């Protein structure tokens, strides 16, 4: 059931499209509505319509047509009613939110997207107030009751004959707040929680600058508990008061601290690394707020008998946490461990930014050999950014025991994996198991792997089944 929550971003976008569509329909409907109300007030339609529109707002009359004046325009009416003004303002907020959420803007200028998205506060506030003017009116029962079939053609006799007292109308009670109050309270709770977590002290246990401008931070926070593959949001007030950036944790839950590996990619990360480089030895880093941990699909790795982990480029980080956790579980020889076999595929253009990860793999490889459990973890590294000189280098060192690029026993493959072959092999080796496939990488690869999972799964419960899980970033 939790798998459904993995697709929360897709759901959010679907709801947003629906809100956009319904706003358009609602607005167009009101455009016609206002125009026809105005025409009716000016007596351009039939007698009944004119009579109803002429009902005044006095002691024994209640009006139906919200347009009271006979010499006004729909535009003027819209801008002088609560419903009209809030409608225009929140539609504008919605349009700004939508244009700044286009993929182009979101991927390139995240701050614009993030700050503009906060206009949703105005959207919801306006939405709740939108009906306060009660201009949508319905007929109330009078005493004696107004007989519609008799009186509709005798509007001049209303109030003068017993069957036709003057019809009375009243505005509807605003109800939008009933729908949105639940989610609004939940959101408020989340922001309050983030603030509370921000106020908690975070201590630096260790700060390491790794090759290729990667910063490793080992942090401690009271009462912090994590699962494998989860991520946290970091906020550094010295760099920016308002920005919270997500980072996958690279430490295992069995450790008494949590770590993140931060690569220098944009403004915030570059500033953080340059600040940390100037610190003296052993000093504490800048004040850091930590929100989280938040879960992703990768938490479920150990629930499967056989797990297939695919990490693409920077997407390899959650698997660092998982692999470290495996190592700890080995040391403790945890009998409750359901997982019997893990296949790990590491795809990247070049390993420069990930030497720290290659080191981790080397340590694991040694550990497993010592314990005679070489078969637990099978990993394959695919370098997709090879060229002639790479190929020449590899050809010369073909007979060496360890790989030239990573120093691992397992040889590096070049190019992209042949997924059909991989799935076929796993199916052959585990003919009766449930295999969990976990991907952290680009959308294109996600689609490919999802198709393969479906293709190689069998309806028969005794045979192999592949379940696909994806982590977004």
């Amino acid at each position, binding site marked *: 059931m939790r798998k459904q929550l993995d697709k929360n971003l897709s759901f959010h976008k679907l709801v947003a499209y629906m809100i956009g569509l319904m706003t358009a329909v609602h607005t167009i409907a009101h455009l016609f509505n206002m125009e026809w109300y105005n025409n009716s007030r000016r007596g351009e339609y039939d007698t009944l319509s004119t009579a109803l529109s002429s009902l005044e707002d006095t002691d024994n009359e209640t009006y139906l047509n919200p347009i009271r004046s006979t010499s006004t*325009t729909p*535009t003027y009416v819209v801008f002088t009613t609560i419903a009209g003004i809030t409608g*225009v303002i929140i539609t*504008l907020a919605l*349009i700004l939110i939508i244009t*700044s959420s286009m993929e182009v*803007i979101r991927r*390139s*200028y995240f701050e*614009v997207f993030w700050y503009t998205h906060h206009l949703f506060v105005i959207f919801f506030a306006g939405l709740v107030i939108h009906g306060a003017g009660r201009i949508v009116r319905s007929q109330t029962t009078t005493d004696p009751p107004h007989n519609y079939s008799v009186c509709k053609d005798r509007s001049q006799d209303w109030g003068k004959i017993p069957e036709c007292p003057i019809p009375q109308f009243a505005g509807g009670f605003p109800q939008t707040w009933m729908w949105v109050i639940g989610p609004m309270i939940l959101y408020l709770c989340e922001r309050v929680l983030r603030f509370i977590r921000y106020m908690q002290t975070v201590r630096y246990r260790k700060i390491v600058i790794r090759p290729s401008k990667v910063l490793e931070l080992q942090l401690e926070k009271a009462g912090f508990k994590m699962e494998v593959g989860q991520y946290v949001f970091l906020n550094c007030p010295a760099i920016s008061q308002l920005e919270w950036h997500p980072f996958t944790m690279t430490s295992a839950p069995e450790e008494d601290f949590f770590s993140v590996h931060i690569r220098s990619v944009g403004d915030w990360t570059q500033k953080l690394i340059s600040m940390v480089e100037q610190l003296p030895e052993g000093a504490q880093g800048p004040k850091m707020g930590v929100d989280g941990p938040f879960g992703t699909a990768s938490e479920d790795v150990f629930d499967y008998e056989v797990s297939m982990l695919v990490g693409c480029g920077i997407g390899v980080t959650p698997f660092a946490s998982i692999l470290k956790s495996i190592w700890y579980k080995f040391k403790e020889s945890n009998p409750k461990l359901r997982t019997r076999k893990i296949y790990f595929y590491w795809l990247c253009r070049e390993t420069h930014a990930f030497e720290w990860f290659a080191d981790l793999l080397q340590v694991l490889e040694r550990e497993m050999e010592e314990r005679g459990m070489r078969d637990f973890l099978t990993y394959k590294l695919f370098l997709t950014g090879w060229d002639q000189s790479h190929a020449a280098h590899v050809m010369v060192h073909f007979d060496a025991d360890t790989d030239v690029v990573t120093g691992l026993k397992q040889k590096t493959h070049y190019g992209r994996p042949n997924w059909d072959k991989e799935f076929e092999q796993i199916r052959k080796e585990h003919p009766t198991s449930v295999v969990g496939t976990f991907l952290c990488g680009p959308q294109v690869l996600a689609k490919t792997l999802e198709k393969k999972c479906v293709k190689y799964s069998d309806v028969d419960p005794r045979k192999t089944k592949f379940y696909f899980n994806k982590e977004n970033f």
Partner: protein
Amino acid sequence: MGKIEWAMWANEQALAAGLILLTGGIVGVAGQFRDWEFAAYGVAAGVFICLLEYPRGKRNKGTSVERTGQYCLTVCVKAFGPVTSNYYVRAALHAALCVPGAFMLPTVLGCVCLAIASLIYLAAAVRGEQWQPILPKTETRERVGESIKEPPQNPPPRPPAELRRKRPEDLEGAAYVNPISVTANE
């Protein structure tokens, strides 16, 4: 926030405004509203703005993503030279185009959205941005046939000399038979 190119967002906003103006105009004309002439203007202006804003400009930093099928319009917009590449002109144009939309309810929303787009374009112009067309790069295609005729520049990769040298312990392995008989020319 230093790296943002405002023109990219202004472009999205202006395109959206054009569509909204167009829709409002269609509603006004189809419903035969009072002052429908302004709605007719909305249709015309909306179409014009959509055509103008559809081709995305080239980004200063990073990869530019084209919209589907924007090449023809890129050529048209490029043909107007400085009028379309200067964002001050675009800001003024959108500010002027939005005014008639304010006179009638269906086009009011398009008017306000266009005014906002005009302001963002003004911010882009102040920062010195410009509209550059995204054109496919004309590469000089290497004639593969030519390079094959030239002799190789580098030797093929081979292991270091010590390994290649024939060792006296391994005479059997060192010996080989020539595939072509080696005799003097007769």
